[in-house]
């Protein structure tokens, strides 16, 4: 069995929209039989935290200096294109 992966959820304040996205992704992945460790942070904190996580799901732009995969999380707020983003997240978790 592969190591449990860690997703870093980011947004402007690290408290509001990243919380909504974290909950939505956690529930959706549970339905797909996948669990993960979750962290939350402000977008500005991501460069300093990225080394410790597998990938990032963010509702706001992330510095180009970050080399870990960044998945856009706005779909979980708008509802538009959610399934496609869930597929991307599932693919990263199954890597």
């Amino acid at each position, binding site marked *: 069995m592969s190591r449990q992966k860690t997703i870093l959820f980011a947004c*402007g*304040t690290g*408290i*509001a*929209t990243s*919380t*909504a996205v974290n*909950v*939505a992704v956690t529930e959706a992945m549970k339905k797909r039989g996948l669990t993960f460790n979750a962290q*939350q942070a402000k*977008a500005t904190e991501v460069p300093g935290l990225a080394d410790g996580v597998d990938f990032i799901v963010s*509702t*706001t*732009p992330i510095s180009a200096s970050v080399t870990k995969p960044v998945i*856009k999380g*706005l779909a*979980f*707020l*708008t*509802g*538009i294109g959610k399934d496609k983003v869930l597929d991307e997240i599932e693919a990263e978790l199954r890597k």
Partner: protein
Amino acid sequence: MSDGLMQLLDPEAIVLGSDASTNEEIIRILAGRLEALGYVKSSYADAVVHRERTTPTGLPLERADNVAVPHTDPEHVLKPGIAMGTLRKPVTFANMEDPDEKLPVGFVFLLAINDKDKQIEALQSVMATIQNPEALDGLRSARTLDDVRAVLG
């Protein structure tokens, strides 16, 4: 469909059909309500306006009247609450995901959040409302608090 939103949405902090013409104007109107009602410190309005410039909160819903969810750091919040404004004419907010893109916004949910673990349901109910076109259409035509309650339950 939007269970729980009315729990944190203070009826005194609902402004329907505002004539505000900029995002700063509607933010300051709603922040003034939250401050008067004891939800936020006097520093909150400036902090939200500043944050909206640096990390905007417009959400593109592929509508003529999109939604924005301005908020700021917990240090400016005294207790959790949500203010809501609907605009007579949409005002411009920048897109959260692409700050160079401007969005016409007809609905503003001003969030005063200070404990993410306790306010998950409220955040989820805001998102459920945003993702429900019928609810937004209902809010747009709402003229009284009872109209709002009928939409948000």
